Each structure stands twice: as structure tokens, then as C-alpha cells.
């Protein structure tokens, strides 16, 4: 659905995008994650034909963003970070104006407006001025607006930024519903790992204008070594117990009275792991979150050439010799 190839965006003093390439499949929710200034918004602006790349290119829905800008714009809906609806107009009026801008034929205009209003749950508020909407409702209106012309791709730039936890969960529900009912590919940027984990089929981590990891949330978490279980015993680890023989266990470490087990799917496998186990004092477990992945990835890219890292490495080398 989207092909990004060797994309470079250079500003006078820095590269916002640095030879970026990836692909997005049809009907998936693709998350773009990364620290502030990583280039997420620049990337969306290029894919939405608002910004021209310095080098490289991108294909959206089969159209080149440089040569077929109008075709690309017909294929996409965009919800920007900052509010972009007129708060002095009603929800319905905002939608009608955009329906006209997109050349939606009069015959189906009203029907389509009601459809998208219902989709985002704003049907009964359509005649209120947007300034009377809550932050979440306003964002939902803008999503409805982005869907009016049946786009193939919907870009959501931080769709839940500044929303309270409850509105955020509501928003997630709507986003899932939209993918199902509208058969649309969604590209979203976010800072909330929980959100990316919950919604995205695949995630691309961007750092310094490059994709540094790209996979499904569960695979990304697995790469950290899977779930971790720490069992502490009252008096020593029972010697007859072999934790490593389970097929879901990757690695076992012993540490005094405790054993640390790295494994898959702690929720479904725990009962087998601790069956008939005696003398247990405590069991702790931790599922790695995307947050851990994010911290590891952004930590890697930051500390790679930092002076401390270099020094500590040399120090470690020195101690060995």
C-alpha cells in the first residue's frame, strides 16, 4: 500500500530523514514510533505530498508522491497533530465543506456524512459548534473528516495526544472499528507505547531519521528475551527440578535461592512451570513492554558513540587483561 524508498530530507543544518526505506501492507495498522525530532512528522508530511523529499521517493496506493500528488491526495485522509477543524462551525458544516473540497457527488454526500458521523459516535452532536466538543470528540470529528472520501490510507499524527485515559481508550475502540468497517490502512505516530502495542500490527522505530527496528509488537518484545519469571525458594533451589526442559523456556539462570527463567507467554505457561513446586517463597514475573523495547533501542542509538560508553568499554577491556 505504501512503499518508501531511500527517503532523504535534508535541511540546511541537519538531515530530518536519512535514507529511510520500508513498506506498509494493505489493511494493517502501522505504527511509527520514535523520540521527539526523530522525523515521524516529516515523513508523514512527505507521504501526504505537503513536503518534497531531498532524495528518494515514495509510492502511496500505487501513485508517486512527487509526480501524482493529486492522485495521492485523493487516496489519503490525514488527521494532523494540531486541531484543523473550524471551531466556530458545527461538526456537520466542517464535514460538508470537506465533502465539497473532495468533490464527493451530491447524491451520496449526505449519506456519507451521516455514515462517518455514526462511525465516530458524533451523530447526535453534529449540529453543535465544534468549540463545544471535548478534545476527544474534536479529534474524532477530524478522523471522520479524513474518512469522508473513502481513502485507502489514513494518517493519524498522534491521535491521542493530550487526551485523558478514558478518552484515549474510547479513541482506540474507534480506531479498531474503523479499520474493520472502512477497510483502510492506517499509519499512526504515537508516543504512547501502550497505544502502539494495543493497536498496531507492525511498528517501525525511527531514530535520527532512520528505521532502526521494524516488526510486530510481540516479536519486538520477544527479541528482548521473552517474559521473565523469578522464583525464590525458602531453602535453596530444589535440585531435582529441571526448568530448562519445558519447550517454552529459553534460558534459566540461578542466583542464590532464586531462579530466573526467560520464557514465552507467561500467562498461559505459568501453571505448568510451577506445578507441584514446593518451598516457594515468592514468585515475581515481568512481561517486557514496548517501553522496554523503546528504551533499549533509543538507548542503543544514543550511547553508541557517547564518551561514557567508550570509556567503560575500554575500562572493561583493561580489567580483563
Amino acid at each position, binding site marked *: 500500500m505504501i512503499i518508501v524508498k531511500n527517503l532523504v530530507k535534508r535541511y540546511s543544518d541537519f538531515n530530518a530523514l536519512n535514507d529511510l526505506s520500508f513498506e506498509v501492507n494493505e489493511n494493517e495498522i502501522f505504527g511509527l514510533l520514535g523520540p521527539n525530532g526523530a522525523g515521524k512528522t516529516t515523513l508523514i508530511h512527505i507521504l501526504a505530498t505537503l513536503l518534497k523529499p531531498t532524495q528518494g521517493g515514495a509510492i502511496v496506493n500505487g501513485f508517486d508522491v512527487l509526480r501524482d500528488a493529486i492522485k495521492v491526495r*485523493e487516496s489519503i485522509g490525514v488527521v494532523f497533530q494540531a486541531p*484543523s477543524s473550524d471551531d466556530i462551525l458545527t461538526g456537520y458544516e466542517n464535514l460538508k465543506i470537506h465533502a465539497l473540497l473532495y468533490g464527493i457527488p451530491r447524491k451520496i454526500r449526505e449519506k456519507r456524512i451521516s455514515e462517518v458521523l455514526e462511525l465516530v459516535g458524533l451523530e447526535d452532536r453534529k449540529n453543535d459548534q465544534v468549540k463545544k466538543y471535548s478534545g476527544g470528540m474534536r479529534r474524532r470529528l477530524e478522523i471522520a473528516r479524513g474518512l469522508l472520501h473513502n481513502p485507502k490510507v489514513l494518517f493519524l499524527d498522534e491521535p491521542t495526544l493530550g487526551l485523558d485515559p478514558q478518552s484515549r481508550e474510547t479513541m482506540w475502540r474507534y480506531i479498531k472499528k474503523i479499520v474493520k468497517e472502512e477497510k483502510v490502512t492506517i499509519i499512526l505516530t504515537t508516543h504512547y507505547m501502550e497505544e502502539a502495542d494495543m493497536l498496531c500490527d507492525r511498528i517501525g522505530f525511527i531514530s535520527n531519521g532512520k528505521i532502526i527496528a521494524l516488526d510486530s509488537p510481540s516479536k519486538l518484545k520477544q527479541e528482548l528475551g521473552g517474559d521473565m519469571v523469578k522464583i525464590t525458594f525458602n531453602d535453596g533451589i530444589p535440585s531435582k527440578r529441571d526448568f530448562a526442559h519445558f519447550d517454552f523456556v529459553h534460558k534459566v539462570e540461578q542466583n542464590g535461592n532464586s531462579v530466573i527463567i526467560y520464557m514465552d507467554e507467561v500467562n498461559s505457561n505459568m501453571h505448568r512451570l510451577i506445578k507441584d513446586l514446593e518451598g516457594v517463597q515468592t514468585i515475581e514475573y515481568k512481561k517486557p513492554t514496548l517501553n522496554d523495547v523503546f528504551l533499549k533501542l533509543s538507548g542503543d542509538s544514543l550511547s553508541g558513540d557517547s564518551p561514557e560508553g567508550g570509556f567503560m568499554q575500554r575500562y572493561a577491556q583493561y580489567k580483563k587483561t
Partner: protein
Amino acid sequence: MLNTKKHNSKIVLGQLYALWLREIKVFLRERSRLIASTFTPLLWLFVIGSGLGSTNLQIGTDYEKFIFPGIICMSVIFTSVFFGSYIIWDRKFDFLKSVMVAPASRTTVFIGKTFGGMTTSLFQVAIILAIGIALGINYDALTLLQILSIVLILSFCLTSLGLTFGSYIESLEGFQLIVSFVVFPLFFLSGALFPIDNLPAWLKFITLVDPATYSVDALRNSILHLGTYSFELDLAILLLFTFIITLIGIFSFRRMKAV
């Protein structure tokens, strides 16, 4: 996807209507802007008009009547230039971006905006014309037609000018520069408040490159029969200015950064 070549012109018309509709709805609902922009010309007409009018000037008619065409133009100057440069606000929140990702050409967006500017100017001028009746000014059908055409052309011209500046200026502070360096000079140098026949040469020269000068003169011809040039000449020069400024405006608007 919904578009086919056959329907293109219909779609462009719909887009123009959408942009125009948005401007008019916003204009009519922002009461404070509406009231302020109507009140200012009246203040000039009555305070400056009566104040300076009491000093016995040699201009061939009441001073209040003399500046009446100038105040019509003033209202158009302020409304139109502000209207055009209002895209600085549209850009401040993401409305402009949301228009730029729609499949409408920049030229269509530009023209849609100027239509909005023309309509808002007409609203204001209608109010001032009604007040003119209280000043003892009579309009026949020809006069009204002439006023209408001059007001529409001038407002098209100056909305384009505002959009031109708005395309280059990114900060809200820049808006103040437009007020000081564009709006007030256009007004003061147009001969709205004084006759331009006997000005010193340098000042006279500047008034000649102000499109509003020809609008004031045309309206003075039409309403008071007191013009410096003929109505036809005024109209021709105004059209020339409008043509050039619109071309520059569309050019600037097309190469404006979207983000």
C-alpha cells in the same frame, strides 16, 4: 477515486463554493470581527468627517460627503487585506494543511479565498451605503452598478495582495507589519481624505502607484461627480493593477510552503 475527468469543472466549482462557504460562515459568526470592521469606517466618517469638515476646506462640497467614497474604499482596503493575510492564522492551526492535502489546486484555493474577500467587503459596503442616505447622498441605478463593480474589483485586488503577503509571512507578529506597511499607506495615499490635485510632486507620485487611488476617484466621479480623472480611465487602471497583483498572488501562493 471519485473523480473522473468529465466531472472536473463541476468539482472545481464545488471546491470554490466550499472555500467561499467556509469564509462566509466564519465571518458571519465572528460577531466581534463583524462589529469592529463596521464600526471603524463609521468612526472615520463621522468624527474625522465632522471634525475636519468644520474647518472650512475648499473642496467643492461638504467634507463629510467628500470623504464618503474614500470611506467606502477604506472599508474595502481593511477588510480585503486583512482577509487575505488571515491565512497566517489558518496556518497557525492546521486548517491550511487540511486544505492543502485535499485534491484542490492552489489556484482554486486562492480564487476561493478572493471570492470570500469580495463577499465580506460587499456586506460592509452595503451598511456604509445605507448610512450614506442619511448624509443626503442619492444613488441611481447606474451609480449603484458603478459602486458595485469598483468595490468588487478593488476587493479582489486587495484580497490577492493580502494573500500574497500572507504566503511569505509565517509569524503572527508579521501581521502587524502588514497593517503598518500595507494597509495604512494604501488608505492614506489613496486620496480618500484629501484631494490629490495639488499635492507636492513626490507625494503625488506615490498616490499614482496606489490602486486604491483610482477606486476612490472612480467612486467620487460616480457618487459626487467630482473626479480628478474620468471614470473609464480609473476603471481601466484599477483593472490593470488587479490583473498584475492577482498574477503575483497566484504565483506566490503556488510556491508557498505547505508546512
